[in-house]
């Protein structure tokens, strides 16, 4: 389910970055805390009205979007919608059509068929209106490394029509969002890859876009920096209520998303929250090691559990493995030595839907180089 009335409405979604449960749970949490709501007071001012008319809660919508390059179909009839304030991930291997979809949504590539709207504007018919309302972070770096961080941001502010009186304030805020305020006057050429990437994300937020697109934001970064980038992304969502669309081929990152779509060979094969997708793949498994497995198995089966006896342990299949643990221990009737609950991972999900596993790229930076060579030749 995607509907979540609690989080609807402006300036609200408050959530704990450690909380990787679905949006529904997050919404409930927001009711109670109320602490994070104060963050909205420091929001960037003057956000463009995101969506005119009735579709106030839909930030991005794609209907049967397709893109062909000659005989090659890069994206086939992709449909999805993203609600305001959501972090939506496109998960798939390289070449699955992730970047092509982003390019269409950002008006950089014309759809061959189908329609899409971003912030309420049609990408094919109102590209300027769309571009004013989106932030864009490419796979490859697009900073001027002979300018300082601040100069890069100022350049961007002018290009995106940030009112003069607000430029300074927004640069302060954007740098603060990615914790680079102290590097403000440093040349970008002195930045590490991770810092540059985070500066680009800040730049993408500078003009308070309705939707921030991040194309493989963490590719080629070390795990620590990837975590930092994610902190930035989630902080932005929390404090600026921006809708975030990102692509990734890292399974663990897709977990951070409120919802995700798995794309393979240009097709969306599954959409849902990480939990929903995992549930579709199958039940949790609980492994029990007891003092008398045979007796425990009989009793558990009698109590209505689906049990399978393994060589060294019992396996119980259940929808909510963790919730069942106390009941299982009680029903087993013998001493339980250890319990291990295994929840399906997104790897299982991906395998389930595509019959393959995502291969990790050997060298992170090889990809953008190739992508650049490709666009250059065109």
């Amino acid at each position, binding site marked *: 389910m995607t509907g979540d009335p609690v989080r609807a409405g402006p300036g609200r979604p408050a959530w704990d970055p450690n909380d990787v449960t679905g949006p529904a749970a997050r919404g409930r949490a927001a009711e109670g805390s109320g602490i994070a709501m104060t963050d909205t007071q420091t929001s960037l001012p003057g956000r*463009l*009205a995101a969506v*005119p*008319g*009735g*579709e106030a809660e839909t930030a991005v919508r794609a209907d049967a979007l397709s893109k062909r390059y000659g005989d090659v179909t890069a994206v086939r009839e992709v449909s999805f919608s993203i609600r305001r304030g959501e972090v939506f991930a496109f998960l798939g291997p390289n070449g699955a059509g992730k970047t092509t979809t982003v390019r269409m949504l*950002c008006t*950089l590539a014309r759809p061959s068929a189908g329609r899409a709207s971003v912030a*309420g*504007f*049609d990408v094919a*018919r*109102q590209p*300027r*209106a769309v*571009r*004013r309302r989106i932030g*864009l972070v*490419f796979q*490859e*770096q*697009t*900073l*001027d*490394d*002979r*300018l300082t961080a601040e*100069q890069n941001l*100022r*350049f*961007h502010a*002018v*290009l*995106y*029509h940030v009112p003069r009186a607000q430029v300074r304030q927004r640069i302060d805020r954007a740098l603060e969002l990615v914790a680079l305020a102290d590097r403000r006057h440093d040349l970008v050429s002195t930045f590490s890859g991770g810092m540059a990437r985070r500066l680009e994300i800040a730049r993408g937020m500078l003009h308070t876009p309705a939707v921030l697109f991040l194309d493989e934001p963490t590719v080629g970064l070390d795990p620590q920096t990837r975590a930092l980038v994610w902190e930035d992304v989630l902080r932005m969502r929390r404090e600026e209520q921006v809708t975030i669309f990102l692509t990734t081929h890292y399974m663990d990152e897709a977990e951070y998303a409120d919802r995700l779509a798995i794309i393979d060979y240009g097709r969306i094969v599954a959409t849902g929250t990480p939990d929903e997708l995992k549930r579709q793949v199958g039940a949790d498994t609980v492994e029990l090691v007891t003092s008398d497995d045979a007796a425990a198995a009989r009793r558990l089966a009698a109590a209505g559990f689906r049990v399978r006896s393994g060589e060294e342990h019992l396996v119980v299949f259940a929808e909510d493995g963790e919730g069942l643990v106390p009941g299982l221990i009680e029903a087993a009737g013998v001493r339980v030595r250890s319990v291990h609950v295994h929840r399906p991972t997104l790897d299982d999900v991906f395998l389930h839907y595509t019959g393959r596993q995502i291969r990790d790229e050997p060298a992170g930076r090889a990809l953008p180089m190739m992508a*650049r060579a490709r*666009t*250059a*030749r*065109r």
Partner: protein
Amino acid sequence: MAAIALGQPGGRLADERESLREDLRTTGMVWEREIIRFFRTRARILSSFIQPVLFLFVLGYGMGSLVGATAGFDFKKFLFPGIVAMTVMSTAISSAISIVWDREFGFLREMLVAPVSRTALVSGKTLGGASIATVQGTIMLALAPLIGVHLTWLVVLQVIGIELLMAVALTAFGVFVASHIQRMEGFSVVMQLLLFPMLFLSGALFPLSGLPGWLTVLTRLNPLTYAVAPLRQVVFAAQHVPPIAAARFSAGVTLFGYTLPDSVNIGITCVFAAVFLALAVTGFGAAE
């Protein structure tokens, strides 16, 4: 009706005025970036003087002794305005090169995906490069006393005006060429094939009178010819140039036996500048 942008109140006229203001702001920012980058690469500032100074002294003294002076007016004095023009030209072109760099380092995309007009971007880029080229060319005027060329403030102002026009035309040309080039190596090839012939065939280094027919045709086809001539004539106007020397070291361009006045030369340069600018705008980011 759901498509009406809330961020743009007011009528069509107000919108246009607003978008013109934003375009001008964009042009200003792109210009500023060129200037910032220029001052950040001091090596480039210095190196861009080496070539013209070398040309001035090596050719001026080397060839000068061969050519000799006519009624006290020597080749160095003839060469000087040409070298100033050359400085402007090569600086303008090397500024335009930066587009190829911008592409290599991805920054071009940052500009091209922004909701701004290409005209605003190209104008900023061109004016930035042209400003730098003009400043460099004007700094070369400091060598005038060494060469024995007399300058007045009026002449300097006129020279700056012509330099600026020439620089705009040439930077726009460079932007146009650079927009169609994907790699750095490609650019240097094109420059060897285009810039150097244009430089040498512009009359910057030798008088355009009494040339063989084919060379006369080539020089008259070269847009730079019409920019170099008025610059030289403006400088010559402040010198004492005896009639025999004026005949030998002719500053003007003759077309079908008719010597073009400065106004026509400047007009032709303006047309070239406009055409190159238009080409640059249409070509900008063509490869994206």
